[in-house]
């Protein structure tokens, strides 16, 4: 057993209101620069929808992630040792700016400087790349709230396997439905971007598992951009280097939550440490599709188990990190309650950002022109929800419904339980029956309710001590470090000649 710690995340989609505050916080802190202008390390997508970059989940187009052919060990879909040199001049699966959007601003000065005339002056859109006028035809949120759209929602790759009737249902006006999917880098356990980098510029930090790109080692071979199935590594067109979400590590190291987490209005984001067994990564990444979600869970170790604690200590994990792992809200959602699921586990990168799938309204029946709904049982309510279970299975279950149904059932049972407690229009017996069907105790339901609805800042973000100062001490004399560090680049990250 080779125990490592990983800063992990849960996004509770049932609480996301799609306000994009996270995206704006991230943009203002990290990507408001030339070359990074089109990047959204954090973005919020409307689902069903095509997302950013457009249809990123369609791996027939983008060739992201790992691929498994029969009994062969997994390989990177877009590249590999044999293909890296011949494909280095032209990356055959590289998305281009057209797949994202051309960033633009507005000619605001024209509002002040325009010649006097019979028309109101306008601020024309200007390309942030060329500085010329552009016709704005795409943006990072172009299909925001366009659930039901025949152009966007209907082309969501997650609709695969849905019947024609289910697809029609999703776009009919009375039953139209949408939810939001905020996305950042998943800081995967088996990151495809890292494995694809010819220069070895990408790496996972041993202490906390944050995936970073060494800007001084990146040579713009662009492999990571193609390889990441979530399209969360971006090519900076100005500096000629790839960049990605850094999980605000400078904030984490000083005990602050990442900017997107901190600013989240709906309080949907949770952050905490998970301990996992690195020796079993290869085995789990090679499991058959239907075993992936449970296999992924089986990597995560119980931080209360004395054996795990002992081995973690001998692996050099500090006591403070182990204690942090014991209080981790992520462990509760993913392991105790099993209501948070990894996105697209079939890409086999073993993402460490988990999503609590959102509840959607149930499909109403029409009786005498009035919409009514009578719920016969717990899972009846889930199967009748407006978003078909197969859709969620494609997104969060690797195509398999079981784990998603479990997570949804438990959430619904918690709702009925709380309704019986507070509103009183549901009798206790029904609520208890639903809890039993969902494999949930009253205590567990209360705990889920509290961490979902009444969570404080400290409940949501259990940030482990990172002991950076000690780590540096082992490599370098602290006084020496103090004299050398702090200025970063001399002259700023300029594009090479």
């Amino acid at each position, binding site marked *: 057993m080779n125990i490592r710690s990983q800063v992990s995340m849960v996004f509770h989609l049932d609480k996301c209101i799609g306000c994009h505050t996270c995206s704006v916080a991230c943009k203002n802190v990290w990507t408001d620069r030339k070359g990074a202008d089109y990047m959204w390390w954090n973005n919020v997508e409307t689902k069903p929808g095509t997302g950013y970059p457009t249809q990123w989940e369609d791996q027939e187009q983008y060739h992201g992630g790992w691929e498994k052919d029969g009994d062969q060990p997994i390989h990177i879909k877009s590249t590999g*040792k044999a293909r*890296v040199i011949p494909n*280095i*001049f*032209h*990356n055959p699966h*590289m*998305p*281009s*700016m*057209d797949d994202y959007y*051309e960033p633009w601003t507005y000619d605001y000065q024209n509002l002040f400087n325009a010649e006097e005339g019979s028309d109101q002056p306008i601020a024309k859109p200007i390309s942030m*790349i*060329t*500085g*010329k006028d552009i016709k704005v035809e795409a943006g990072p949120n172009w299909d925001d709230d366009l659930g039901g759209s025949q152009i966007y929602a209907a082309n969501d790759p997650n609709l695969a396997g849905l019947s024609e009737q289910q697809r029609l249902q999703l776009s009919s006006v009375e039953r139209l439905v949408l939810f939001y999917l905020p996305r950042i880098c998943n800081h995967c356990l*088996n*990151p495809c971007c*890292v*494995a694809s*980098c*010819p*220069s*070895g510029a*990408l*790496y*996972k*930090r*041993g*202490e906390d598992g944050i995936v970073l790109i060494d*800007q*001084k*080692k*990146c*040579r*713009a*071979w*662009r492999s990571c*951009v193609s390889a990441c199935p979530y399209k969360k590594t971006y*090519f900076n*067109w*100005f*500096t*000629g*280097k790839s960049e990605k979400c850094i999980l605000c590590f400078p904030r984490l190291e000083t005990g602050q939550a990442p900017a997107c987490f901190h600013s989240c209005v709906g309080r949907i984001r949770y952050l905490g440490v998970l301990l996992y067994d*690195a020796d079993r990564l290869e085995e789990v990444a090679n499991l058959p599709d239907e075993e992936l979600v449970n296999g992924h869970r089986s990597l995560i170790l119980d931080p209360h188990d004395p054996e795990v604690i002992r081995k973690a200590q001998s692996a*050099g994990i500090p006591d403070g990190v182990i204690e942090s792992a014991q209080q981790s809200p992520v462990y509760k959602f993913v392991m105790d309650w099993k209501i948070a699921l990894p996105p697209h586990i079939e890409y086999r990168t073993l993402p460490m950002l988990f999503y609590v799938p959102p509840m959607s309204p149930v499909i109403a029946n029409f009786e005498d022109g009035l919409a009514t709904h009578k719920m016969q049982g717990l899972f009846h309510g889930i199967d009748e929800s407006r978003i078909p279970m197969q859709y969620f299975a494609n997104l969060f279950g690797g195509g398999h419904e079981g784990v998603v149904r479990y997570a949804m059932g438990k959430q619904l049972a918690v709702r009925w339980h709380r309704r019986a407690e507070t509103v009183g229009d549901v009798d206790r017996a029904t609520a208890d029956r639903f809890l039993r069907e969902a494999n949930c105790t009253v205590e567990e339901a209360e705990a889920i309710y509290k961490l979902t609805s009444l969570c404080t800042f400290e409940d949501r973000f259990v940030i482990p001590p990172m*002991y*950076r100062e000690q*780590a*540096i001490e*082992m*490599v370098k004399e602290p006084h020496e470090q103090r004299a050398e560090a702090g200025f970063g*680049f*001399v002259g700023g*990250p*300029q*594009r*090479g*000649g």
Partner: protein
Amino acid sequence: MSQHFFDQFLFVALPYVCLFTFFLMTIYRYRAQSFSYSSLSSQFLENKHHFWAVVPFHYGILVVTAGHFLAFLIPRTLLAWNSVPWRLYVLEISALAFGILTLIGLVGVIVRRLGSSKVRIVTTPTDWILFLMLLVQTASGVSLALFYPWGSSWFATNMSPYLWSIMKLAPDVTFVAAMPWVVKLHVVLAFLTIGFFPFTRLVHVLVIPNPYLWRKPQVVRWYSRREKTR
């Protein structure tokens, strides 16, 4: 006398200045400004014509450059190969073909950069100077292959001794001084390109990622234990 001085300047002084600049500045830039070592790919900004320009250029110039190095390193072997006519023809025709491939690719690269407004934005004056140098160099190389046949042989007999004399710090310009002006242009421009090399995007040639072929897929960096990577 002035011709002698001129030859000494072009084929002795200039090569040493260029070679010195190359080594000094390449190492300095790698140590002081490693951030600037990048292939500066523009594929992200323009992906429709990228393949048809960049791929022929790279394959062409790699083979042609490798050919020059072989003739420099193993001239006797090359002459032995060329002693049978059909082998000479095969070599010369392949060299010409890759030279033309380079030229087509290079023209493609330049046209693409002129044609795409986005790519033009990320093209610096240094790039344009470099493209012009490479264009003249490739064109002169192709014309040599066409109009001064069996270059592979006369490179081995005449140019290799000159280049070796430079390397051995005992410069001897006898052979190169007697060459036609196109050859002289090609030689001078070659050294100028070497001297200009560390100031351009060409430095990406030096950081080709061979370690990828034998490293393990995942990379982990420990700050508390520097040596351990997986």
